[in-house]
């Protein structure tokens, strides 16, 4: 017998089922179709303004830096300032995201480059799919627009997130994801990012900048 059928028959023997019982099949089909939400968390259900406030506060609590700008026209300047204040080189790598491309980068002296990271880039900017207020988490989706390597290889990662895309809880973000990609369908990688990389593996001392970015700067637009 193949390992697969062996394992399935062991599972079914232990559970005392055949795998064809109607109530079980429909329980599973229903759950997959309806994806019930479970216990809601109150902090994920705030009015929009408070939600954005909570998102920023939670992100700062996990060592992100956060700035807010009124519209996307101001993003390049904000990023140029951020890099200058940190004494970082005026270079920036990004994917093909149309929202980022449409920003007035020529107003700054930033040297832009496009594409995935090969590990040599110091600074990168990505556009978030969504932000989640309950834990200050960014939801990033992979693709040529925002390559996953930009989330991990550069030392300084900047993420632009639109205030309109900030949701209260994870469940609301999954709802938007389904609307965008289709129910049950996902891009290759969805990263939920909560703060810059860290490790506590040496004597339980938390240190930033383990393998991913050492610094994570968020620009909230709107």
């Amino acid at each position, binding site marked *: 017998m*193949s*390992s697969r059928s*062996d*394992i*399935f028959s*062991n*599972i*079914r023997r*232990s*559970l*005392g*089922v055949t*795998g064809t019982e109607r109530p*079980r099949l429909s*329980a*599973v089909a229903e*759950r997959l179709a309806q*994806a*019930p939400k*479970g*216990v809601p*968390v*109150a902090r994920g259900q705030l009015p929009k303004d408070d939600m954005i406030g909570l998102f920023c506060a939670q992100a700062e609590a*996990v060592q992100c830096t956060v700035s807010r700008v009124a519209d996307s026209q101001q993003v390049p300047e904000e990023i140029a300032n951020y890099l200058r204040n940190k004494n970082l080189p005026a270079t920036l790598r990004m994917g093909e995201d149309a929202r980022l491309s449409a920003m007035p980068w020529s107003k700054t002296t930033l040297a832009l480059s496009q594409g995935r990271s090969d*590990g040599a880039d110091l600074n990168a900017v990505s556009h978030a799919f969504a932000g989640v207020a*309950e834990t200050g988490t960014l939801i990033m989706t*992979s693709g*040529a627009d925002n*390559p*996953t*390597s930009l*989330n*991990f290889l550069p030392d300084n990662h900047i993420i632009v997130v639109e205030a309109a895309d900030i949701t209260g809880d*994870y*469940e609301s973000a*999954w709802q938007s*994801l389904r609307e965008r990609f289709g129910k*049950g369908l*996902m*891009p*290759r*990688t*969805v*990263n*939920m990012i*909560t703060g*810059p*990389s*860290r*490790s*506590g*593996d*040496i*004597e*339980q001392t938390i*240190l930033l*900048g*383990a*393998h*991913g970015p050492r610094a994570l700067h968020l620009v909230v637009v709107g």
Partner: protein
Amino acid sequence: MSAHPTSPQFKANAHEALGDAQLQKALGNVRAGFIDKRVKAAAKLPEFEDLRDSARDIKNHALAHLDLYLEAHEAKVSASGGTVHYARDSAEANRIVIEICRARGAKTVTKGKSMISEEIGVNEALEKAGMEAIETDLGEYIIQLRGEAPSHIIAPAVHLTKEQVEADFRRVHKHLPADRDLSQPVQLLTEARTMLREKFLAADIGITGANFLIAETGTSVIVTNEGNGDLTQLLPKCHIVLASIEKVVPTLEDVSQILRVLARSATGQDMSVYTTLSTGPRRPGDVDGPEDYHVILLDNGRSAMLGSEFEDMLRCIRCGACMNHCPVYHAVGGHAYGWVYPGPMGAVLTPSLIGVDQGGQLPNASTFCGRCESVCPVRIPLPKLMRHWREREFERHLSPASTRYGIAAWAFVARRAGLYRLATRFGMAGLGWLGRSHGRFKWLPLAGGWTKYRDLPAPQGETFQAMWKAKRGT
């Protein structure tokens, strides 16, 4: 083959651990670190206790329908261009890993943290097949340099002090200047980051574990803080996921419920830094990500736990809270348990996975204080499960003769009320008289093992039964 257990020698292992000054110093970090952080994180979320119930119910539902959710998961993985493999045991899982690596002509394999990979001993298997396996989680990297097994499921190197890590880095990273300063943890971290960057970029295959598999989407989920698991699966041409069958949950919503209790229970974070959902290989138009995506699902005894009194254990989400709160773990650390899984969860799981003859000692390593159960995010009744194993060990005559005679003698007396009263009265009076000057015993005949590490307070009066009687005035 899987990691070779030394669990049968638990007593000797524990004895050694108690005398190890470095280890005792390092274990102080467990006691100091994890407990407070968990309490604070839980207190900040009013729904925490309800979410624990919810997490328990989701896992129970998934286990009761495990066959169907595994089928749904497999269909989705295939539809997104990935492949699911099934392995009955460690040998089979290793064989599948090696086949995939060989087909790609792989020389080096980077690895994210995976307890399943420890369980099956895949590093050893890869090395035998002529490939280099590189652990990339900082803690795992350190213990790999030392040729050790992890001593904690989320903090593999918690048994080491920074001086020990420094000595290892100097021993292994020989090409770096000998006079470099490595006295601070941050310097050690930076050195490991630089060393591993090169490995990530050069690797042919990346192996990660999975905290969850999502049936709805055919997704594997890893939860990390460092980002090493992400570089592991992102940069090589092929991503292999090693997971056990009970990791599957129905939907994204279900994962979200469990995530809310996972990091809070584990490290006291609201959320770990990186929760990564991977579905299939890279898509047309993608500019990075692996070209192949394989999920290897390991049974290794788990299907037999379903429907048994140990089924509850399959809910475990490997948060480590039970060991963080365990007085026995605090005293002896993880290596004494002698196999892959330490602490209370290991004491229940190890005999299930490698047999009660090998792991039967572990369920005895408990004071039955109940702290593990009180913090377990999926409410596994760990003390009850340990008791089940003790019963089985006793029934199968696997406990030592002295224990069996002792218990038999106790049972003989306890079943005879008059004799029991008499024996305890003389016992109490005798011990009270003997210990009257110091109030405690540093040593007692027949209980030398017990008194070696603590004193026994001398009884100060009557037996409980006598006091009860006096109090109630009957």
